[in-house]
């Protein structure tokens, strides 16, 4: 008996290749799709789609595909090489205890991490609500009324605040004054960002001062006395920017009470692991008059069509997709998943729990300070004078601790939520100090604990049962990839496989301090080397920087590399950046931040870049031409034939070619930017390389560059260089394992199949829907790339049905809408990715066709223009079940238009959200309980 069981196991087929799990339409489905297109093979499709001049002939130079189990084992062996000491290093990164209920139900839950940015408010109420709580938390901590839905990291948040001060002065004041020492990585990023826009650090406050910046506590751990400087700044009309530790703020007077106009910082220590530098959420809060200068996302409360409260992204006209080079920032994303973890952490502990953590940290700190003779106002950090820092650092390492080497004779220790009595005693003995059993607190002015975080939500989920259900209740309101295809054009909502996610949670990945010495981070070094090498292979470039922690930051870093390259050759007058009118708004916003002047070039009627206009403008500005920014394949979802010619024209006039890799998923393993003439290209690892969108972040936007630009990649203070674009040397390093696993499990051949399938699926959808919605742009041989633009304006013209009506009606069919009104107003852009199975593509096409038929009924007068299932979409369960159903169509038409069984039906929690009301009556945090009572 035992033998026969053994035999069966041996003869069972080996684990199917990962690519067959990642790619949705497998062999038979692909054949059916090809047949529908009238094509004999994928090869024929590719030859009709991708210009022969740029097509890669062989396979990428990558390792052969590994199975899930083998890849996990290999990566684990690598990451085990990390030596994770107990960190008391501080400098902006702290040990945390991630509440297991949050780790499992939020961080590791695809309902939370596979969601997209909440542009479609009605299917995003859960994460919008949690982000609203995040904003309320930040508003309470800072005392400032308007808080945003998070920024990328503390260093870039400070740079954004400085930029706000500059814009607040209508770009007239250029001086930055520091009242206290910032963390070195923050200072570096601020200088990187300030220089291209003409801002500079000065020592005195004057009429040219845009802002006074102070860190609270400063990098030495000290709360200084800045009252006189703050008064002087206020008198001079400069803004006061406070970089404050949000754990300290739970017990300290809010910065608004002593002069802060803008308050920023990192929320990492609210339950998000250090992860060798990221990702974490940074926070930003401002006074009311500065609201419209806020960079990035802001969640606001509005009402739905029935007057019920609902959340949405507010004041989007500030953002780059509308304002282009006049935007407040190039920031497109937030760190939504991490901000939501921080909000959940605060809900879990509540105000008294947070204050208890802060005070426990402080008591340990005060005892060490007293023993060391430190008397300043401090919170969690003691900077100690020693005979030899090197000797102390080594002794600490031998005892299992990572301390901060400040200079030759100073070492600092920073306690955190994970620090214990035993840690204090062990660390004190390293310094030869003897600590007393208690010490006098060393905090500056405290806050009134009774008036902090009084909002009911922060008192609502103290038991694990309640927290588990809160997280389930919120995620149930949202549509993420765990329920449906998210066919967002330009967003590449592909599978984020479980095996790719698992290494992110390993302690060897999660608990590493970003500034740990190289001999402790060998595992990370191997991981980083692999990813860099593989991305070089994919793009055909000589070097890659993984530091930019969002696509926008990649654009910025790439343009800075071009700027520095020109400057290194004495070409300081090259400041013109050509950008086609079809470009995403982030391009001009990034160019503006990099100190370039944008010149827009035209597109032809078929959506392609107008080569004649481009050549004319390149020639006209030849002396000043710095770069062109091109998206390839184009933002219109087409492989333009002229790409090689574009590169030639720009190079002939002394410019550099920046390739926007937003659509890289269409060319991986098929063509390489480095081969067809680009000098720099950013990649969105959160699109093409499987990092989940997290409901609006995190992302990683590495850049690849040709050899001549390699010296101009971002540096970092810990490398002895500068000009960093992010706080941590490798940006959001802890999610790099996702990309490593994807490439390792797919191999060169799997990646090629993925790209081919993405293109096949897009062409299949375009073909099926073309009779109902014209496909706006195609390549010369009638094919689209990996996405297609459906011209839904036909329904507007014939039946008065808008693109928004279609998008919202898709919710009733259980779909997340495609990208709406971008890049062409009134249209939908559909990107299926390679991961969606054919039956899901068909379900989507069926829904789109059914909607066209519904519009026909409106046109024919069967349903009135003002009362039909399209204009009233989406329909909530409450409205369907209401006793007074008064519409000229039935409840089942409203709720189950495709006849889907109610047990698999998605019910939107709100009807259509009123955008105008939300922007006219901005509410972006929950008021304290006493305000609610009055």
């Amino acid at each position, binding site marked *: 008996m035992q033998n026969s069981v053994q035999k069966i196991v041996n003869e069972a087929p080996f684990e199917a290749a990962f690519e067959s799990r990642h790619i949705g339409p497998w062999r038979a489905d692909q054949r059916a799709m090809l047949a529908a297109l009238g094509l004999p093979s994928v090869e024929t499709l590719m030859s009709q789609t991708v210009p022969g001049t740029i097509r890669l002939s062989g396979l990428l130079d990558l390792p052969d595909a590994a199975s899930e189990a083998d890849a996990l084992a290999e990566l684990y062996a690598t990451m085990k090489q990390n030596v994770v000491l107990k960190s008391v290093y501080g400098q902006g990164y702290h040990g945390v205890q991630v509440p297991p209920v949050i780790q499992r139900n939020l961080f590791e839950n695809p309902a939370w991490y596979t969601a997209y940015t909440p542009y479609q408010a009605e299917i995003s109420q859960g994460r919008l609500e949690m982000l609203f709580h995040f904003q309320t938390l930040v508003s309470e901590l800072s005392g400032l009324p308007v808080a945003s839905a998070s920024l990328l990291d503390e260093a870039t948040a400070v740079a954004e605040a400085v930029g706000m001060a500059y814009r607040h002065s209508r770009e007239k004041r250029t001086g930055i004054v520091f009242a206290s020492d910032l963390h070195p990585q923050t200072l570096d990023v601020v200088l990187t960002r300030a220089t291209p826009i003409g801002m500079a650090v000065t020592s005195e406050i004057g009429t040219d001062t845009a802002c006074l910046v102070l860190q609270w506590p400063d990098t030495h751990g000290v709360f200084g006395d800045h009252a006189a400087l703050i008064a002087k700044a206020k008198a001079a009309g400069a803004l006061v920017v406070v970089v404050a530790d949000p754990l300290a703020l739970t017990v300290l007077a809010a910065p608004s009470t002593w002069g802060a106009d803008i308050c920023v910082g990192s929320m990492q220590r609210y339950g998000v692991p250090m992860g060798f530098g990221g990702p974490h959420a940074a926070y930003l809060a401002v006074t009311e008059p500065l609201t*419209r200068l806020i960079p990035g996302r802001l969640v606001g409360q509005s009402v739905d069509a029935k007057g019920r409260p609902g959340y949405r992204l507010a*004041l*989007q*006209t*500030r953002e780059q997709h*509308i*304002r282009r080079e*006049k935007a407040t920032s190039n920031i497109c994303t937030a760190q939504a998943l991490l901000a939501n973890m921080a909000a959940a952490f605060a809900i879990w502990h509540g105000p008294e729990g947070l204050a208890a953590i802060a005070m426990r940290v402080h008591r340990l700190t005060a005892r060490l300070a007293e023993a060391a003779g430190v008397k300043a106002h401090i919170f969690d950090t003691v900077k100690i004078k020693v005979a030899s820092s090197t000797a102390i650092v080594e002794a600490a390492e031998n005892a299992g601790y990572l301390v901060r080497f400040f200079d030759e004779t100073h070492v600092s220790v920073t306690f955190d939520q994970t620090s214990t009595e035993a840690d204090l005693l062990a660390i004190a003995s390293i310094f030869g100090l003897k600590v007393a059993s208690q010490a006098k607190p060393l905090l500056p002015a405290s806050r009134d604990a009774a008036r902090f975080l009084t909002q009911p939500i922060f008192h609502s989920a103290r038991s694990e049962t309640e927290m588990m259900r809160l997280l389930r209740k919120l995620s149930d309101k949202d549509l993420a990839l765990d329920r449906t295809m998210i066919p967002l054009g330009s967003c590449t909502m592909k599978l984020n496989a479980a095996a790719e996610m698992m290494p992110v949670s390993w302690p060897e990945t999660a608990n590493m301090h970003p500034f740990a010495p190289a001999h402790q981070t060998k595992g990370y070094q191997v991981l980083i080397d692999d990813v860099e090498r593989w991305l070089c292979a994919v793009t055909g470039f000589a070097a890659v920087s993984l530091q930019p922690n969002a696509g926008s930051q990649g654009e910025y870093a790439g343009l800075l590399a071009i700027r520095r390259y020109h400057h290194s050759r004495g070409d300081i007058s090259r400041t013109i950046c050509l950008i086609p009118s079809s470009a995403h708004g982030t391009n001009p916003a990034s160019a503006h931040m990099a100190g370039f002047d944008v010149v827009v070039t035209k597109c032809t009627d078929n959506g392609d870049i107008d080569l004649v206009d481009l050549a004319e403008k390149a020639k006209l500005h030849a002396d000043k031409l710095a770069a062109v920014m091109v998206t390839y394949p184009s933002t219109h979802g087409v492989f333009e034939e002229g790409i090689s010619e574009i590169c030639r024209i720009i190079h002939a006039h002394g410019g550099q070619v920046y390739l926007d890799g937003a659509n890289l998923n269409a060319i991986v393993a098929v063509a390489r930017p480095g081969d067809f003439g680009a000098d720099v290209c950013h990649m969105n690892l959160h699109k093409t390389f499987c990092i989940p969108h997290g409901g609006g972040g995190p992302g990683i936007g590495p850049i690849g560059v040709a050899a001549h630009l390699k010296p101009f990649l971002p540096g970092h203070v810990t490398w002895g260089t500068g000009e960093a674009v992010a706080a941590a040397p490798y940006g959001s390093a802890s999610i790099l394992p996702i990309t490593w696993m994807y490439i390792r499990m797919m191999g060169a051949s799997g990646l090629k199949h993925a790209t081919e399938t993405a293109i096949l699926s897009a062409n299949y959808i375009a073909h099926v829907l073309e009779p109902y919605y014209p496909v706006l742009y195609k390549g010369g041989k009638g094919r689209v790339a990996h996405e297609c633009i459906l011209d839904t304006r036909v329904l507007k013209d014939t039946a008065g049905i808008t693109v928004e009506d279609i998008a919202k009606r898709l919710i009733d069919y259980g779909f997340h809408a495609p990208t709406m*009104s971008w890049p062409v107003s009134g249209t939908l852009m559909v990107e299926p990715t390679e991961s969606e199975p054919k039956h899901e593509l068909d379900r989507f096409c069926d829904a789109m066709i059914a909607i066209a038929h519904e519009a026909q009924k409106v046109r024919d007068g069967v349903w009135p223009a003002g009362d039909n299932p399209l204009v009233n979409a989406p329909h909530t369960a409450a409205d369907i079940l209401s006793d007074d159903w008064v519409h000229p169509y039935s409840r089942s038409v409203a709720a189950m238009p495709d006849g889907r069984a109610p047990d698999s039906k998605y019910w939107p929690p709100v009807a259509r959200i009123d*955008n*105008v009301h*939300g*922007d*006219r009556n901005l509410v972006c945090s929950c008021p304290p309980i006493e305000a609610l009572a009055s």
Partner: protein
Amino acid sequence: MIYYTEDHEWIRVEGNIATVGITDYAQSQLGDLVFVQLPDVGATVAKGDASVVVESVKAASDVYVPVNGIVTAINDAVAANPELVNSAPEGDGWLWQMSLADMSQLDGLMDAAAYAKHIA
């Protein structure tokens, strides 16, 4: 006399003072306005300056100063209720008033009939 610009501003001139706003056509293209940013009273402005911004939920649009001059008054009512620009763009939804530095700059602008033709 009311003048119109190609960028869809209107200018009503009474003596040396001009009242400026955006046209009915402009507000209909922008949709429901949610925010209007007005210049500072006393500011010296020049033809072509874009120091005024009007925003709907989907678009932000610069309003260009049509002639040189000094801002003498702003319409606080539209700052508080941007919908006034939608409901009465060429009446209560005016944006600012300014003194005119150079009357001859009016010469290049359109009258109502020419503007109607411009947007047709």
